[in-house]
């Protein structure tokens, strides 16, 4: 079947839904998602959304601006960051008006809490900037935006999996989707295509990301000749529940939680003397793993303790209910009385599909635009997070740039007619699918994927070096050869998740190589990218964005400058 809409949005998380709400008044909008409504990974966000509302104490957008630039280790583009922080208050009030059930101050305003890297007066002390609904902020915003989409009669194609992107004369014209429930292929044609597909944490063994966060869109776009930007910057959240990797929000430290090593020491005092446990995530993750490496992990193992026992039952059950419930269910511990075992967990992709400030996808380092194609949210790189994202800036990014993409798309689709396609994009997609289903081989998906997750963990996580990165790339090539010999055992068409995962794995191997390749070429340490062989930041050489292109000769790395408007790079100390 062929379905026509003005605007096709891929991904039903916060960026996609915020964009949909924005354009649904004037355009015919369809949202495609591989999961059912409200299952998208944005719902797992816990801690909050930043905005300098100043509801709890004095705050200013200029301080938020500085913190975000410093948090990004000066790699974020300051023109884009300025848009993000200046638009934050409006974005929050708008959510409140839509009905988001924020927690409240005694005066009835939106409550705000501390979060890592957010400070007053340019780094002097922590400031309460994260607006929250207990520790289920992402879920309630997702619910609210979904409800708004229902109200605006946005069309949903749920449990449809995108197989390929369709272009006509270089312009984004649609997507080919695989209906998971029937196994049928359809073409969704549109005048503008927004990619809002989230991150790709599932390439790592330990991750806070959901099963749907597999990252195939990075690879799909990349194979269309679009470069990927700053992919070496992968955030490890300091506090994943040990050993599952489930997120334990920074809100736990924002509310007063303390990290302790085997000796009971509050070790963050040494790594970040001013803000301690509320330093930026890259700093805290490295600190935890340094403690572990030096033998101060709990019971000699690779985790430390997050201590909430001094907070009291009332505060924990009111503000950290979900987290407390995870700890009780999965570890059988009560965080009111016992410390929580935590370890860094893969959480967020700072890099992504390069876009301008209005969500338009960029084709090269000169800023050429790919017409008809947009990206927003975690899969995009504007870049507001640079080398390290601050907590609660992600939801803000989704809302601000999701909306801006929506505004741009509805303006631009009014000037275009629906594309008439010269060739049938369904046939090649169908052929590829049948080939994968019928192919004989000795390899299975699961062992290859497990090995990939181990390789990325060993060589592409918090600490990296040249030898490991090269080894990792070699291993990925070996896995790619093995992937050629896979056989999909399930030949059915109805909810065949083995087939879907086989397709995903092919893309994950591409994505992983781009990450390690980008990391290999950045011979310095900045933000989440730490090179043991180059432990210093090198502004003279590397104050620039990485762009990796696919060429006939293999991967090619190019660079583009960072936009610096207000804050010159300086030493980053917390």
């Amino acid at each position, binding site marked *: 079947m062929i379905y026509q809409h003005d605007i096709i949005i891929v991904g039903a998380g916060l960026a996609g839904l915020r964009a949909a709400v924005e354009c649904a008044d004037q355009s015919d909008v369809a949202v495609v998602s591989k999961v*059912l409504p409200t299952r998208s990974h944005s719902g797992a966000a816990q801690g909050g959304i930043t905005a300098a509302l100043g509801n709890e104490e004095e705050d200013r957008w200029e301080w938020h601006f500085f913190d975000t630039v410093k948090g990004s280790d000066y790699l974020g583009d300051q023109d884009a960051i300025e848009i993000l922080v200046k638009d934050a208050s409006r974005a929050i009030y708008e959510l409140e008006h839509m009905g988001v059930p924020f*927690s409240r101050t005694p005066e009835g305003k939106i409550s705000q809490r501390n979060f890592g890297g957010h400070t007053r007066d340019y780094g002097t002390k922590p400031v309460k900037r994260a607006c929250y*609904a*207990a520790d*289920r902020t992402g879920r*309630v915003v997702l619910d609210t935006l979904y409800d708004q989409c229902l109200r605006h009669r946005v069309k949903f194609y749920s449990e449809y999996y995108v197989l390929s992107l369709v272009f006509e004369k270089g312009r984004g014209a649609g997507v080919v989707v695989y209906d998971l429930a029937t196994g049928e292929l359809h073409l969704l044609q549109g005048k503008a295509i927004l990619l809002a597909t989230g991150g790709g944490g599932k390439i790592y063994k330990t991750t806070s990301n959901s099963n749907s966060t597999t990252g195939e869109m990075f690879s799909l776009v990349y194979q269309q000749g679009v470069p990927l930007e700053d992919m070496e910057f992968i955030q490890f959240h300091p506090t994943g529940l040990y050993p599952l990797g489930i997120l334990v929000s920074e809100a736990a430290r924002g509310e007063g939680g303390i990290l302790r090593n085997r000796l009971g020491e509050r070790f963050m005092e040494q790594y970040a003397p001013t803000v301690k446990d509320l330093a930026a995530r890259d700093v805290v993750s490295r600190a935890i793993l340094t403690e572990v490496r030096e033998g101060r992990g709990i019971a000699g193992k690779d985790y430390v303790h997050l201590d909430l026992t001094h907070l009291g039952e009332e505060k924990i059950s009111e503000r950290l209910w979900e987290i407390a419930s995870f700890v009780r269910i999965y570890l059988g511990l009560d965080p009111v009385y016992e410390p929580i075992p935590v370890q860094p967990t893969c959480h967020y992709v700072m890099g992504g599909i390069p876009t301008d400030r209005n969500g338009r996808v960029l084709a090269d380092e000169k800023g050429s635009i790919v017409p008809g194609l947009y990206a927003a949210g975690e899969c995009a790189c504007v870049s507001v997070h640079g080398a390290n994202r601050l907590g609660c800036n992600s939801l803000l990014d989704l809302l601000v740039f999701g909306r801006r993409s929506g505004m741009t798309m509805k303006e631009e689709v009014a000037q275009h007619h629906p594309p008439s396609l010269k060739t049938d994009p369904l046939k090649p997609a169908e052929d590829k699918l049948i080939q994968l289903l019928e192919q004989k081989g000795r390899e299975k998906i699961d062992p290859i994927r497990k090995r990939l997750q181990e390789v990325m963990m060993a060589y592409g996580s918090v600490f990296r070096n040249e030898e490991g990165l090269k080894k990792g790339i070699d291993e990925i090539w070996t896995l790619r050869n093995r992937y050629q010999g896979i056989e999909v055992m*399930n030949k059915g068409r109805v909810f065949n998740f*083995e087939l879907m995962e086989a397709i995903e794995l092919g893309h994950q191997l591409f994505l992983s190589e781009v990450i390690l390749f980008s990391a290999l070429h950045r011979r310095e340490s900045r933000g989440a990218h730490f090179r043991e062989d180059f432990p210093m930041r090198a502004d003279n050489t590397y104050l620039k964005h990485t762009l990796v292109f696919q060429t006939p000769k293999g991967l090619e790395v190019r660079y583009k400058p960072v936009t610096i408007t207000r804050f010159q790079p300086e030493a980053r100390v917390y």
Partner: protein
Amino acid sequence: MLVKLKVFRFDPSKDKEPYYQAYEVEAAPMDRLLDCLNRIRWEQDSTLSFRWSCGHGVCGSDGMRINGICGLPCQKLVKDFKEEVLIEPLPVFEVVKDLIVNLEPFFVKYHSIRPYLISKTPPPEEERRQSPEEQHLFEEAIRCILCACCTASCPVNQNKETEKYVGPAALVRAFRYLFDSRDEASEERTALLDHKDGAWGCQTLWKCTEVCPKEIPVTKQIGQVKKRIYEAKKKGGLS
């Protein structure tokens, strides 16, 4: 330890009738039942189909019936099961394949209660004010993850004669808006729910409350919705 599972299987493209298939999986005591299901799928039988995503009780994807009780296998640990575990799809809904059911009717009912804030007064430039006490009135209800375990467990929804009942999940969301001080559509909402398939469909059987993976006092909240309807009618002189 070795975990034994008996799993409901049905593929409409080839099976005339559903059947049960036995599996054995090696698992650690602290593993989730979800991990066992994934191990079956990845290591033994890739034809088994079920939904899952976040794996920790937030996305609401993996609702199913475990030893006859609706719940999330991502929230159940292996150590709490001694005998063979019976795994079946959620009742009430039509089975599409194996453990996957068609949730379309669930979302249609959810949609029918107008699940969004209705406000007639233009909002101020900043946030609307709401006291912490006002927010606490409905705070438990916002834990809902739309997993459909409550609706699937409800004997009223399970009964073919009364299956049109809007169901507990939709009523929890109705409660959430009725008791939100910012909402200004109380009259429309109570009118919308004032019929035998609305709030009055609830027969106070508590099954929803028993199974809710997020510990929402569902029955109590439905009771408060009924009370609100009753009061609205009394005030309007309609009783």
